């Protein structure tokens, strides 16, 4: 056989093997490692979900893609951390942060949204880009540009790890309590938001505004009030996301780029779906970690960075509204 042809075959089979065979052999060979990686992916995914959730809440009720969500997360996290730093008890720090985010919602409604009422979505999107840069500069003036560690003890977040399944595998799987806390608290928050949207009068009004704000206006739903409610709600989500995300590393302005990580999550889950944001985040998080660990050899070192966007692209081709998004109703 010709030497170059043989070389080609061996490279090709090596590539395909690396893509379709080796990882699965590794799954079976070391299930403890697989579980470990999936759990890491879960914890990263929950963080994506929390940021995506903030987007969904605002998008649902106003059709605005809020580019400033990432910086709001940072802003909220830093507010809590800074308040605790100057000696405010944790519980008050969180309550004060809620007040701050509420005040911010009122200000945004007055200064940004009200003058732009009934403008196309793209104009509002541009306005939120402006808002993002303003908040970043303003935040750096207030909090300083350096990242701050989150005082986990003061907030009462457990920081230990469980070792489980040690009897089954060669090594026990480590489960971090921090991740577990994020998972449980995140779940509770999502449940609360879903209940709020589906079971309360304001929640129903919010969905109505999302569908047709002219009609909502015509039945007497006050749009400015609804906007303040959704921005406050997304501010609440931002506080939680900021603190939990900060607890994993540090609370700093570099976290604002996580907003871009939420984009594939939103496309996957659907821009209008609360459960979609959560599941989308988890799927993206787990896929990223699996890809990084098992497919890095064949797909390259950067795979963790781009795999989410590739998934989003594929989803866009087949289900433009995302996995769980509201179906686009068209009458012909």
């Amino acid at each position, binding site marked *: 056989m010709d030497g170059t042809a043989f070389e080609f075959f061996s490279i090709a089979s090596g590539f395909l093997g690396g893509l379709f065979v080796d990882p699965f052999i590794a799954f079976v060979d070391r299930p403890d490692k697989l579980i470990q990686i999936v759990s890491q992916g879960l914890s990263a995914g929950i963080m994506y979900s929390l940021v995506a959730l903030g987007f969904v809440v605002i998008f649902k009720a106003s059709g605005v893609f809020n580019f400033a969500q990432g910086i709001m997360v940072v802003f909220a996290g830093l507010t809590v951390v800074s308040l605790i730093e100057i000696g405010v008890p944790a519980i008050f720090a969180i309550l004060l942060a809620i007040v701050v985010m509420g005040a911010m919602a009122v200000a945004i409604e007055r200064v940004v949204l009200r003058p732009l*009422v*009934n403008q196309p979505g793209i104009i509002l999107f541009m306005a939120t880009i402006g808002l993002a840069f303003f908040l970043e500069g303003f935040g750096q003036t207030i909090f300083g540009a350096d990242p701050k560690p989150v005082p986990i003890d003061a907030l009462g977040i457990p920081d230990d790890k469980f070792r489980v399944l040690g009897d089954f595998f060669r090594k026990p799987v480590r489960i971090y309590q921090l991740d577990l806390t994020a998972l449980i608290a995140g779940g509770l928050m999502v449940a609360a938001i879903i209940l709020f949207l589906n079971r309360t*009068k304001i929640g*129903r*009004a919010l*969905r*109505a505004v*999302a*569908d*047709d704000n*002219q*009609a*909502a*206006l*015509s*039945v*007497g*739903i*006050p749009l400015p009030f609804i906007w303040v409610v959704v921005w406050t709600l997304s501010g609440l989500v931002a506080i939680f996301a900021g603190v939990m995300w900060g607890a994993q590393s540090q609370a700093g302005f570099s976290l604002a780029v996580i907003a871009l990580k939420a984009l594939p999550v939103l496309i996957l889950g659907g821009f209008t779906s609360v459960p979609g944001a959560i599941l989308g985040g988890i799927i993206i998080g787990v896929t990223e970690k699996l890809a990084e660990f098992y497919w890095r050899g064949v797909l390259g070192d950067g795979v963790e960075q781009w795999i989410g966007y590739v998934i989003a692209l594929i989803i866009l081709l087949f289900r433009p509204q995302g996995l769980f998004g*509201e179906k686009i*109703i068209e*009458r012909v």
Partner: protein
Amino acid sequence: MQADATPTQASEKNILLSVNNIEVIYDHVILVLKGVSLEVPDGGIIALLGANGAGKTTTLKAISNLLRAERGEVTKGTIHFEGNQVDRLTPNDLVKQGVVQVMEGRHCFEHLTIEDNLLTGAYTRKDGRTAVQNDLEMVYNYFPRLRERRTSQAGYTSGGEQQMCAIGRALMSRPKMILLDEPSMGLAPQLVEEIFEIVKKLNETEGVSFLLAEQNTNVALRYADYGYILENGRVVLDGEAATLRDNEDVKEFYLGVSGAGRKSFRDVKHYKRRKRWLA
């Protein structure tokens, strides 16, 4: 009868809504209404007639204050509801006072169920859950079809059902007056009759007054008590519905029948040109 009393609408019934010589400008430059005046008596069904672009929808939106969301503005004239000036109120306050609009093209909340659609109509009410439930029941009694479709997403219901849903949703705010914009649009003739029958019934039993904008002059004049005809942003003719129905010009221009038998096309064209109310 006193000598100086002129038998106007005002002397017969309480005036619920009075629109006094309003002018509406969109985007600061486009003059749409050039002085429209009209009155709606308590318990009346008033028709606002005219062709496309005559200003019917703008008049309704000026009353319901939805204009501002479309960059329109009432620049002259006043609007009074039950004697109070209302042209500076927000739509929210106006709904609380008892004026609600059903917009042209239904505008149901597509992704909400029919029942949720109806319940959003009760947003401004403060009289408690049971009262709202009772009214929901009332709406279902007027529109039995909505009860059948209560759990369907409104976007998947038929045009007629959506129109019923939009009217039902407006009813849920317990209005004194409904501004009904083009209820016949895109509906089969039989359904149009059905909708107008229900409007009439609501008017008689619930005491809701209606100001309805219609292009279907024929149907509108059969159900309304009084009509205004708009052309180019002005009221060009008004009168009792029966009077309007017999008016030669209305017959010629809006009802498509003419008492004088078949004319040649040349005559008709000439007549219409001569008779145009506005240059």
